[in-house]
């Protein structure tokens, strides 16, 4: 070895050296002794170097070397070692060209021999060579080394390499990503990014080598990529601005890859390969980078980055990103509202992408998290600054976005969930009120995303109840939000805008559709509750906006739910409004007038919607009369502050809507008016107890006996109702399908005659129960219980007899009582009342 070195590396004699190299290029000669002594592989390696470094690799000799290494692969590692040593010396002497040639040769060898089993050892030298080139300050060497490394990274190795370490490469490539060289800045940065990509490719799939997901690596890789991408967004902005001003024409150059483009690609690749456990290790440095570079405000880049992450991440993990971002929001609770707003906006932009994948608990978890943020935001701020409310707005938007991408049944779940978090009305403190409003606002946001099909699904009892309670809230804005929620959920035909003003004129843009069967059932079950709440809310405040909001809800209710079967209920409701205006003394004169105008407007609306002409004529008559005598009884609503109450004559009973007249109208139209005639109009503060209201047993004792039982009886008849039994209303036409199944069903179904028979029977039963006296019903159903009754009596008698024996006192009276004076608990319920 020493001898060879001595010959080959004459230290300080450049002239001699040159001559020597020249000689050495000829394999046959060389300076006597050494040629013969040198191993063959060394000679082959030496020969690939040209005399003049500028000439480049000696191709023919390179082929010889390749052939040699293929035929005797055991020498491959030694060739690698030797090449590395040569290159090291060349670099130390700053003969970069020769070093480049050595690198090139190694590349070629690697490509040619990558199937060899001994490649592993060669790779060691190869990587050391790459490292050597990277360590030098010459930028060209660095770029070349990176290219070699990338080539290597694309080779699939068969044998695992346990001890290979990449931390230097990661450090160095990351450093190159930040390169600030004047001439070669972009190419160096590109090289850095490519190198990182290579490392990622090489390590990510192999568990045996270094764990690329370690924090120490990710903290270098991610910021380096972001740093390059960041530049891109800035450039994009400049370009956009320039294009806007016309200074720059867009030049699309697809072949030219810039560092930002490549960095983005690598980030996508990295995120795409991340498994569940690794996502956080990518996101943590990402968030830190955004923090450090203050990229939240403005948040264009943050949004851009997170979009990339969300799109390229494996979809099942996407909600982790949302979670992490939310945690980051947690950690940032002390930073400026602006930052938080930006964060929330970013959240709202990406949350939609995650929504599709997260179901069940994780969805509610996210919602809960958002609500918690809202709550802390409300509770920590003493006064609402514009920025803070912007932040809240952004959070609510995020919530809405999130809900928007869920299926409808989950929206309901989400709404229920939000509803449950709204604080009780009993809490009167200002912050609680604020929180109520904010939460209801978010509820509204979700509600607007929900497209109602059937009311039964949109208003489950557990949701409707608290909502109705809120509708009676003393705080005006709260109530108005609740009304908006109702409007959002009720409005199936986009009539909300149309009906926003109170008017007796026909609404031309109104679109409607007769309610479906299930809607009618819903109306019977809960319609009364809703209307009750509406009346209460109307009586609570004389503010015009609050009133018209309540009107809007009522009008939508009418448009969506009214039909010949429910019209009586609505008429009672309208009468109720009027009655409140008449009877409740505490209301102001203007408020009363407004209630009257609302009542008449609703009457006109319902008569138009249901198409009952008699009713419409009657309503028009009143309208005309009012126009003559008391225009303040008509829309538009009066401003309580601007109108003086003195000019308002409120004792005008002939201008009021008359209940009897309404009944007549209905009867004339051939409709049942019994409910209207017998039922009392709605009044204020009636307890509604929905669980009881539609329960048929309990309602016997309830205050609204008739309303409810009749309602339920109608439902009962409804079961066999068909088109012809509800005159004046065209039913929703179901599209008939003539399929095999449909035919089979038709055949299997009872005939029309049988149906009619059954219907009549049912009607008869209903009529009996509806019309006959209670006692009679008792009597009718009694006989079946005679047996048990007699038995009981017998028992009682025997008991009494026994007692008679023991006490001989007033036994007669006791016996009498036992037999004749039946105590109340012995009264038999009719059979139907047994559940």
């Amino acid at each position, binding site marked *: 070895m020493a001898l060879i070195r001595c010959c080959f590396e004459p230290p300080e004699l450049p002239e001699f050296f040159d001559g020597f190299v020249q000689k050495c290029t000829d394999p046959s000669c060389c300076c006597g002794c050494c040629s013969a002594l040198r191993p063959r592989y060394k000679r082959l390696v030496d020969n690939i170097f040209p005399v003049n470094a500028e000439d480049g690799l000696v191709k023919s000799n390179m082929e010889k070397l390749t052939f040699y290494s293929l035929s005797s692969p055991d020498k491959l590692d030694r060739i690698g070692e030797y090449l590395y*040593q040569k290159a090291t010396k060349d670099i130390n002497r700053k003969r970069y060209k020769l070093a480049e040639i050595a690198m090139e040769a190694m590349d070629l060898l690697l490509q040619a021999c990558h199937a060899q089993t001994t490649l592993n050892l060669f790779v060691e030298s190869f990587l050391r060579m790459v490292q050597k080139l990277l360590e030098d300050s010459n930028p060209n060497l660095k770029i070349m080394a990176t290219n070699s490394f990338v080539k290597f990274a694309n080779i699939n190795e068969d044998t695992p390499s346990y001890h290979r370490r990449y931390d230097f490469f990661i450090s160095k490539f990351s450093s190159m990503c930040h390169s600030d060289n004047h001439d070669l800045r972009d190419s160096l940065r590109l090289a850095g990014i490519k190198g990182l990509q290579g490392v990622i490719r090489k390590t990510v799939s192999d568990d045996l080598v270094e764990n690329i997901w370690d924090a*120490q690596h990710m903290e270098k890789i991610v*910021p380096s990529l972001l740093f390059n991408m960041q530049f891109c967004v800035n450039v994009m902005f400049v370009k956009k601005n320039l294009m806007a001003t016309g200074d720059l024409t867009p030049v699309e150059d697809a072949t030219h890859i810039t560092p930002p483009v490549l960095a983005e690609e690598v980030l996508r690749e990295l995120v795409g390969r991340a498994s569940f456990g690794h996502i956080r290790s990518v996101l943590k440095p990402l968030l*830190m980078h955004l923090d450090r*570079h203050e990229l939240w405000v403005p948040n264009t880049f943050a949004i851009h980055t997170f979009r990339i992450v969300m799109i390229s991440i494996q979809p099942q993990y996407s909600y982790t990103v949302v979670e992490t971002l939310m945690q980051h929001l947690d950690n940032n609770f002390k930073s400026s509202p602006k930052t938080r707003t930006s964060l929330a906006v970013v959240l709202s932009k990406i949350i939609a992408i995650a929504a599709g994948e997260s179901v069940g608990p994780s969805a509610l978890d996210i919602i809960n998290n958002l609500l918690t943020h809202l709550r802390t935001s409300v509770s920590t701020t003493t006064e609402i600054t514009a920025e803070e409310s912007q932040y809240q707005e952004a959070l609510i938007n995020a919530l809405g976005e999130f809900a928007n991408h869920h299926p409808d049944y989950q929206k309901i779940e989400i709404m229920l969930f939000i509803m449950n978090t709204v604080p009780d009305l009993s809490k009167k403190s200002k912050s609680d009120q604020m929180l109520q409003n904010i939460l209801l606002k978010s509820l509204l946001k979700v509600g607007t995303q929900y497209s109602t099909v059937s009311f039964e699904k949109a208003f489950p009892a557990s949701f409707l109840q608290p909502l109705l309670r809120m509708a009676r809230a003393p705080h005006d804005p709260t109530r108005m939000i609740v009304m908006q929620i109702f409007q959002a959920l009720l409005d199936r035909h986009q009539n909300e805008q149309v009906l926003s003003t109170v008017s007796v004129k026909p609404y031309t843009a109104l679109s409607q559709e007769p309610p479906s069967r299930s809607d009618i059932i819903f109306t019977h079950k809960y319609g009364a509750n809703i209307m009750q709440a509406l009346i209460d809310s109307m009586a609570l405040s004389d503010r015009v906006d609050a009133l018209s909001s309540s009107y809007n809800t009522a009008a939508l209710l009418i448009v969506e739910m009214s039909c010949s079967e429910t019209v009586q209920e609505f008429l009672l409701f309208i009468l109720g409004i009027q009655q409140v205006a008449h009877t409740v003394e505490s209301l102001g004169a203007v408020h009363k007038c407004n209630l009257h105008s609302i009542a008449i407007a609703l009457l006109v609306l319902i008569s138009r919607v249901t198409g009952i002409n008699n009713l419409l004529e009657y309503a028009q008559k009143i309208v005309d009369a009012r126009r003559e005598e008391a225009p303040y009884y008509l829309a538009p609503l009066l401003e309580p502050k601007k109108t003086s109450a003195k000019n308002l004559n409120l004792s005008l009973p002939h201008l009021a809507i008359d209940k009897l007249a309404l009944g007549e109208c209905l009867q004339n139209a051939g409709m049942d008016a019994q409910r209207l005639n017998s039922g009392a109009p709605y009044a204020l503060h009636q307890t509604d107890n929905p669980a009881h209201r539609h329960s048929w047993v309990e309602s016997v004792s309830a205050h609204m006996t008739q309303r409810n039982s009749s309602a339920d009886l109608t439902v009962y008849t409804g079961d066999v109702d068909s088109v012809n039994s509800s005159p004046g209303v065209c039913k929703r036409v179901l599209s008939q399908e003539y399929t095999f199944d449909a035919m089979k069903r038709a055949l299997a179904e009872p005939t029309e005659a049988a149906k009619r028979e059954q219907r009549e029977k049912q009607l008869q039963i209903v009529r009996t129960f509806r019309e006959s006296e209670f006692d009679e019903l008792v009597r009718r159903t009694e006989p079946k219980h005679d047996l048990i009754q007699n038995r009981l009596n017998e028992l009682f008698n025997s008991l009494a007899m026994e007692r008679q024996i023991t006490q001989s006192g007033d036994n007669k009276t006791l016996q009498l009582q036992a037999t004749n004076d039946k105590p109340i608990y012995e009264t038999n319920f009719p059979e139907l009342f047994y559940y």
Partner: protein
Amino acid sequence: MEDYKFLFKIVLVGNAGVGKTCLVRRFTQGLFPPGQGATIGVDFMIKTVEVEGEKIKLQIWDTAGQERFRSITQSYYRSAHALILVYDISCQPTFDCLPDWLREIQEYANIKVLKILVGNKTDRHDREIPTEVGHYFAKQHEMYFLETSAKEAENVERLFYEIAAELIDQARSKDGSSAATTAAQRQTDSGSIGLGFSSLSAKAAQSNCCSGLGLGNNDNASGTVGSNNTSQGG
């Protein structure tokens, strides 16, 4: 055949504009770049030195001082063998930030890392921090202390050579004990670092031989070192 016996990673930290890049440039390239711009991210330099007859390769990572690059620079602390904490003797704020830097080092760096406090720019006449203050601070926080001037090439060589010498001592003592790194081991290690300081300063005061040798080698860098070795072999 490796061309070095030890490889040490040295990371320079400190506020922006205290002269970290200039220190590194002066040491690795022997020049003082006048209009040096702010470093972006992390810069990398390599230099092979010879201490006590051993060839040592120093990987020097020169980090950006700017706050915004902290996310990436922190990740380089972890693998460092030595951290050079630089401040500007003519700029009080850069000195005031030192506790923050120490906290950051504590958080991200290896606990056994060798820490050196460097007051740079001694060529300036508007000194704001007296040598004693820097010395006292370093003593308090168990750091080695040195004042340098990258412009005048004062103490720059010495700084890196002494770091190299100290790191060799550490590495050798570790080899000697050759036990698994338990808590006890760590304690002894930190103890040896403490000892090292005294020995270092003693050496520094005693002789300049080491830095003298470095200066001699400085111009043609590791090239001469490499050839020296091979010729010895012959």
